[in-house]
């Protein structure tokens, strides 16, 4: 029955079928590839967002204020989308990076100081990433004096060797660990209705009849302002704008591919915020509800994952944190040195030899070296590093957004694609809100520093 002929005939039939399927999908293959080529930067940018500083900030805000910070997520999603969309649009229609445009339109000196600020703030971010490594490893029982140097060397080598693109994909896949928070949030059985109601500003909701008993209204003080600023700073980070626009230019996104990129940015912003929502709800239900109001180390933060992983929560959290930290640590120093060198006209790029691009490599190396060294030296201030690096992001954001807004409204650069009036309103209002928040934080923390010098570390 199973003669050789019949097997061969069957084999042939199968190859024939496979061939027919292949022929059938051929016309679409090109389109699918094109879609994949364009989709990505928006998603990457928003995912790197949930890095060590991010996870800490979300966990801390959930632990400290429970549901009371949730209302900021919707305006933040809008601000994130609006600001990133402007950059991707500029990239697609001018074909130039953000730092290039700032240099060409505002001159050398302005660019220099902006770049110096970015360098400083991103050093803070790199420190936050290595703090993530430090927390994750100590939680798994490895001393930070081993893990942080190893991580620093690994990141440096991977990126310089050019294997980073490949590793990037692994990290991106590991980002699925964030879904652990989603599941954990469901298992913790929070009161979903109350959480959802807190998506609207409780300050207003309390005046809605019948809501007064349900919503909690946060007291607005320095601590609350710092948490809000850190939330904004970690979700809408200045470096994202530079990274996204450079990626759009590098991927050769033109006016024709632009709609796909915009979708990518929408998907990225919303998915990022959905995850943030679940992280905060999850920590609110596990930490805040149980009276733990301060996230002091990875162990505390990991409690949030207990409903899902039980005893393994701590391990799961550590892996997630390590992944997020390494992912961001492999992107941040590189993109920072790239942006700075491009703006100031130094040779840049990993494909250049060390001799050709000395400054680029020097910047890249010292960001990693200094970042990891400072984390080792300042180990006991880990919490302060994590929170304040995000607050500094928030400080730098308004100037960057102002540059973006001026550039995107220039008709000689953007032609018909300048902002619409309503878009401009949203953008300027969110910028103004961030400036006010920044000033409040600056004022209150200086005020507090002078009145209670002891409480400066939070």
């Amino acid at each position, binding site marked *: 029955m199973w003669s050789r002929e019949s097997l061969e005939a069957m084999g042939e039939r199968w190859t024939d079928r496979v061939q027919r399927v292949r022929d059938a999908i*051929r016309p679409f293959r090109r389109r699918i590839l094109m879609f994949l080529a364009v989709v990505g930067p928006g998603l990457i940018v928003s995912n790197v967002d949930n890095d060590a500083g991010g996870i800490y900030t979300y966990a801390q805000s959930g632990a400290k204020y429970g549901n009371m910070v949730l209302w900021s997520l919707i305006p933040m999603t809008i601000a994130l989308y609006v600001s990133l969309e402007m950059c991707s649009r500029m990239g697609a229609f001018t074909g130039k990076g953000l730092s290039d445009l700032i240099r060409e339109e505002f001159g050398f*000196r302005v660019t220099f100081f902006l770049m110096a600020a970015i360098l400083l703030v991103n050093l803070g971010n790199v420190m936050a990433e290595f703090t993530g490594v430090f927390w994750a490893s100590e939680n798994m029982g490895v001393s930070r004096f081993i893990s942080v140097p190893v991580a620093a060397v690994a990141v440096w080598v991977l990126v310089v060797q050019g294997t980073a693109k490949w590793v990037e994909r692994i990290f991106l896949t590991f980002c699925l660990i964030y879904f652990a928070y989603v599941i954990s949030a469901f298992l913790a059985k929070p009161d979903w209705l109350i959480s959802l109601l807190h998506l609207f500003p409780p300050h207003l909701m309390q005046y809605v009849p019948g809501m007064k008993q349900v919503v909690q209204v946060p007291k607005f003080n320095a601590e609350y302002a710092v948490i809000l600023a850190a939330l904004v700073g970690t979700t809408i980070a200045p470096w994202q704008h530079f990274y996204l626009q450079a990626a759009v230019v590098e991927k050769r996104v033109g006016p024709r591919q632009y709609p796909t990129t915009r979708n990518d940015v929408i998907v990225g912003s919303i998915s990022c915020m959905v995850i943030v929502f679940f992280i905060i709800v999850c920590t609110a239900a596990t930490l805040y509800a149980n009276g733990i109001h301060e996230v002091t180390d990875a162990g505390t933060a990991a409690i949030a994952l207990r409903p899902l992983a039980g005893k393994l929560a701590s391990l799961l959290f550590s892996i997630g944190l390590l992944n997020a930290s390494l992912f961001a640590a492999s992107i941040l120093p590189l993109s920072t040195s790239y942006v700075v060198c491009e703006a100031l*006209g130094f040779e840049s790029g990993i494909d250049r030899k060390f001799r050709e691009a000395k400054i680029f490599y020097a910047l890249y190396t010292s960001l990693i070296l200094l970042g990891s060294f400072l984390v080792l030296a300042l180990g006991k201030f880990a919490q302060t590093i994590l929170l304040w690096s995000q607050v500094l992001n928030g400080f730098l954001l308004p100037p960057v957004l102002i540059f973006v807004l001026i550039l995107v409204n220039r008709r000689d650069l953007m032609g018909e694609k300048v902002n619409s009036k309503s878009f401009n309103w949203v953008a300027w209002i969110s910028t103004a809100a961030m400036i006010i928040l920044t000033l409040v934080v600056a004022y209150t923390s200086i005020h507090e520093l002078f009145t209670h010098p002891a409480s400066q570390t939070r």
Partner: protein
Amino acid sequence: MAMTATELMGSKAYDAQGNFVGKVREFFVEPADQPNRVAHFLLARGSFQPLVARHDQVAAIEAGKIELNVPERALGTYEPNEGWLAVTKDLLDQQIIDTSGRKVVRVNDVDLTEQRTNGNVELRITQVDVGLPGAARRLLQGIAPQRLIRGLQNRLPTRAIRWEFVNLVEPDPLRRLKLRITHEKLEDLHPADLADIMEELSPAERQGIISSLDEETAAAVLAELDARLTTQIVEKLDPEKAADILEEMAPDAAADVLGGLSKETSEELLEEMPGQEAEEVRELLEFDPATAGGMMNTDFVFVGDKSQRDEVVEWMKEQELNLDQLDTIVLLDGGAQFSGTVSVARLLLASPEQILKELKQEPLLSVQPNADERDVFELFDKYNLRMLTVVDDDGRPLGVITVDDVVSKLVK
């Protein structure tokens, strides 16, 4: 004495009587007149209308001070002029092409030198500074004392490009014409280098360069560019010009470009191309890019397999062949069917009367146009091929795939 654009900016200008006229806010080169001479100085004073001093109205220049040899009333008022190159607006912080170093760089400062001509002083641009000294000056000018800046500058490694090697990139074609910006120097570069340079520029600038190159160079550059960029550029070109460029390209490269365009645009361009070439490209477009047919080139050399070596060489001399790329010849038998291939090296060493059929390479290899590209790669790898013939169902050769087609596919 030498000085830089940054030092000159803000210098105070005094007229023949020693009265203050205004500060230098901008200065212009008029390339149509002289390519490197600073032809006009824009002098501004408070809310007065800015005045313009011509090069022959300047008696002496030093950093911070300009003396004119005419009274203030002899100066003209400022009218914007497209033919003037504004040094700070059009040059500082902008990207230029360094044609000697073959790359795109950003201008930090512009170096000027003084030149005495009968009775007045002219400034000439010597080089553009793209290195650290220029950066330091831009940062510190007006903040730190002049001596300190100069001292610092002397310690920093210089990176500068002589003015004659500077190629400006101006996207607007009218302005380009008025500023006498030509791309002759770019045409001397290797197309692959030029393609690298173009990839660093913005779309508008790329468009500007391609449309001003001659068709042959443009075709060579487009063939080297990233496929997505090529599509973007061709889409925006004037159809007639695009068709002229496509005509210069090898049919397979042209088909690749057209394959990336929309059906209508591609059809429109094919209409513009001469009949025979358009026909060849049309045939190639029928094939999927991921098959042998999509990779092949219909432009190949074929001769009868019964011809003698000398006959063939004589015939080849009369043809216009691309000698740099030719290394294999296709043989046809009496029925116009594929009979084999002969490498040029074997042809070279064969005796004059030898019949080509005897020189055939073994094994006899060919593929059908619908063969998958991966099968093609395997054949090239296994048999160390430099060329593979594509034949139709009747065994008639349709085209050839050369090793460079394979390499460029694999690199993508």
